[in-house]
């Protein structure tokens, strides 16, 4: 029966309510399209979301869903995942929801390696509340809450996840359905926690934040596509690449200048997260050439059920009640 599932089986009857042109539409459509691949019936799939435009995602998926409170989706999901190993659990969160108010739950879910897939819609702005700065807004950005420009250095979500012991960390883009789907596939098959940062355009409050990576004429020059086992190179004609410089830091070079042999080979399976962090920090904001794809994918025991799924029997309970010294009064 699950074999016959189609995109339509994952579309709820609720009218989608995002602004015209919002990147969320593209991600929703891609996710609904991908779901049948899981081969899991909709009733065993759960979407748990936080508050924000991204948070509305749950209402549009015809699966079980919980629209939680701001920033707490990873905690809700951790409880559900611990209680119900039989479910496929997805968290959808925004850059404010996941990294500002929800930062603590995110890093703990990652270190515990809770079996949930976390989709972080990063539009580098607060959308639902109409345009305040987010922890990923670039320095100097003018927003409703920062009329003189953002003064706090932003987080790099991939870097934060790597420092937080994440076992799977990836980055993709709303507009690139193919790449997005590939990454979703990898995240879905990963055992344990997966963090997927999705660059998502907010045409209303932060339009063009990722134009560098999405506009036809410049994207090739700026998308550094990470492929396991392959040298890291990019550009219209793969003319540029990444090497580890003499100073021990990664740097972008012209392949011609250094020779292909010098290029760094991408390996998401490294135990040492250092090189992945170096890649994540190649660009602090997506205005420079920016790696996308899977930064890290390693195996580690999954945070799982503690007490099993069946309560005590009545006999076990009876024994428990009289455990320790007991006496009888006739």
């Amino acid at each position, binding site marked *: 029966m699950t074999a016959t599932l189609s995109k339509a089986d994952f579309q*709820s*009857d*609720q009218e989608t309510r995002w602004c015209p042109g919002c990147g969320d539409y593209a991600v929703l459509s891609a996710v609904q399209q991908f779901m049948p691949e899981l081969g899991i*019936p*909709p*009733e*065993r*799939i*759960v979407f*748990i979301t936080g*508050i924000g435009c991204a948070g509305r995602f*749950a*209402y549009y*998926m*015809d699966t*079980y*869903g*919980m*629209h*939680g*409170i701001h920033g*707490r989706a990873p*905690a*809700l*999901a*951790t*409880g*559900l*995942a*611990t*209680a*119900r190993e*039989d*479910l496929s659990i997805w968290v959808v969160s925004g850059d404010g929801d996941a990294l500002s108010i929800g930062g*603590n*739950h995110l890093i*703990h879910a990652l270190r515990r390696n809770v079996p949930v897939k976390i989709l972080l819609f990063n539009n580098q702005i607060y959308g639902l509340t109409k345009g305040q700065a987010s922890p990923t807004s670039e320095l100097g950005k003018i927003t409703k809450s920062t009329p003189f420009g953002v003064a706090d250095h932003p987080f790099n979500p991939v870097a934060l996840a790597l420092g937080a012991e994440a076992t799977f960390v990836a980055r993709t883009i709303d507009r690139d359905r193919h790449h997005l789907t590939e990454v979703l596939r990898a995240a879905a098959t990963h055992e344990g926690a997966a963090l997927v940062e999705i660059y998502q355009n907010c045409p209303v409050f932060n339009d063009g934040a990722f134009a560098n990576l999405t506009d036809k004429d410049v994207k090739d020059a700026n998308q550094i596509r990470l492929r396991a086992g392959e040298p890291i190179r990019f550009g219209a004609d793969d003319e540029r690449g990444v090497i580890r410089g003499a100073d021990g830091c990664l740097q972008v070079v012209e392949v011609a200048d250094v020779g292909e042999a010098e290029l760094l080979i991408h390996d998401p399976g490294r135990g040492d997260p250092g090189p992945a962090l170096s890649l994540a920090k190649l660009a602090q904001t997506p205005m420079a050439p920016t790696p996308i794809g899977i930064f890290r994918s390693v195996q580690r025991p999954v945070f799982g*059920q*503690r*007490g*099993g*799924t*069946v*309560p*005590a*029997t*009545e006999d*076990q*309970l*009876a024994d*428990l*009640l*009289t*455990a*320790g*010294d*007991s*006496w*009888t*009064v006739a």
Partner: protein
Amino acid sequence: MTKQVEELDRVIIRFAGDSGDGMQLTGSRFTDATAMVGNDLATLPNFPAEIRAPAGTLAGVSAFQIQFASSDILTPGDHPNVLVAMNPAALKVNSAELERGATIIVNGDAFTKRNLEKAGYAANPLQDGSLEPYRVHQIPMSTLTTRAVEAIEGVTTRDAGRAKNLFALGVLSWLYGRPTDVTKTWIERKFARTPAVAQANQAAFNAGWSFGETTELLDVQYRVPPATDVPAGTYRNVNGTTALALGLIAASVRSGLPLLLASYPITPASELLHELSRHAAIGVSTIQAEDEIAAAGMALGASFGGRLGVTATSGPGMDLKSETIGLAVMLELPLIIVDVQRAGPSTGMPTKTEQSDLLMALYGRHGESPLPVIAPSTAGGCFEAGFEAARIAIRYRTPVILLSDSFLASSSEPWRVPDVATLPGIDPEFAMTPAHPPDAAEPFQPYSRNERLARPWAIPGTPGLAHRIGGLEKTDGSGNISYDGANHERMTELRAAKVAAIADEVPPLVVDIEPDPAHPTNLLVLGWGSTEGSIRAGVRRARESGHRVATAQLRHLNPLPRNTGDVLRSFERVLVPELNSGQLAMLLRSRFLVDVESYCKVRGQPLFADEIADEIASRQ
């Protein structure tokens, strides 16, 4: 030589010593032996503040109090008649609370110059006559213990030093004729892996016993006859924490819902986490969350998945859980929040007891978010409270706050173990088909309601019932997001009505004596939660001195028993003793416009029976 035996009706003993002296152990061993005798009893440990203080200092004193009697008793007692003090600090800290003429048994060896200084004694109280009003027995416990064990193969001097608490136990066991076999078997079990230590402890215990028997020092032996007014059944000692853990597990068994506790450590609630985390083998999952917000979220997530979600904390943690509790109110999912109250505000006095979270339990969330609140009134009662909280949470799809406190959690008493078969069943009534309740419209209406106004609980994995819920206001029935004013008002009323209707299942408030027209009782003492023992004991004393007074205890704070108003109005005066500034009084006054009077105690201590007796006397 045989000694004279004196019969006593009740005794209050306090074992006190340095944290390292093992007084908690001595106390609990004495308690078990006492339970075996068939005395009624109540105990209360008193630990030093969190961080272990230097040996011999006042801050490092640890104590354990037990009251046992031949007739039913209600509290660990206000003022000990016997103090066992293992060092000067223990004497200094505890002597003030002794009753006049009390017996003091000290370990004479510990009264060195150094220890006296550490305890802040200028002169040795054993010599300067300051203990005049008491009967003091000085026993060189360290010396005698060492002598008793030094012969034993493989015993270190350290083992010897540590065995002196069993010497003390021996002395007291003899003094009150406690059976020795219980202790003997316990020692064997406990030190099975280290026979030398077992032998040493046994030797120390025996030495203490025979010291009592042989020396002139102790001339009388006391006998407290077994309690005769105890209903038949199997009994064990439990403190509030253990009883609560068992109650929750029992509810899990009777509902068929595996228990998931998510909690963040905090004194005095951590013990529940420790207790439950031991039962993984029987379907109990525990998670130590990163904070209280996450703990509440994890428990709620588990509830969404069809588990019995529980989270436990104390005051500061309650503040942090409030937003998630509000979400649970909106989601209308079962959730149990245990608040083991401690002295606030803010960090306050973490190891001290108080009842000051009542109003926060009722109103500590933004918006109109009503939920049931239950407060156990005895250690054993924590079992029923835990079970009842789960029953209500599941039947009504609602978060329930259970208000325990530091005193209840750690005080213990004999508890009549219930017969599992007699425990009510709890049917989670999971929704299995879109039409739920049967007459409901399709497609599935997650916010349709049954006769109790409870909504269907459809858990992930159930085909055809996939649905979305969240914290936004929802349309009556369908549960879709709604910004409609009329709908919001209706939903607000429905949420309130559902909780109010629980009163149908709340037992009526029971006054302990029938009003007798001949001698009208014009004063009711009404308490809630953990103060029941002290209030009943105080009322009993007042009656013994001729006062006509009635008492009753509230265990359901929301909704209140349906007859509460009638009960209040049937008395001229109502006295409400609370370990806060009058929170229940505030509730009752607004609900029933009755001019109840408050007796407020905010000292981080439990209520004392004396205080109640005095309050009653002052009103008659």
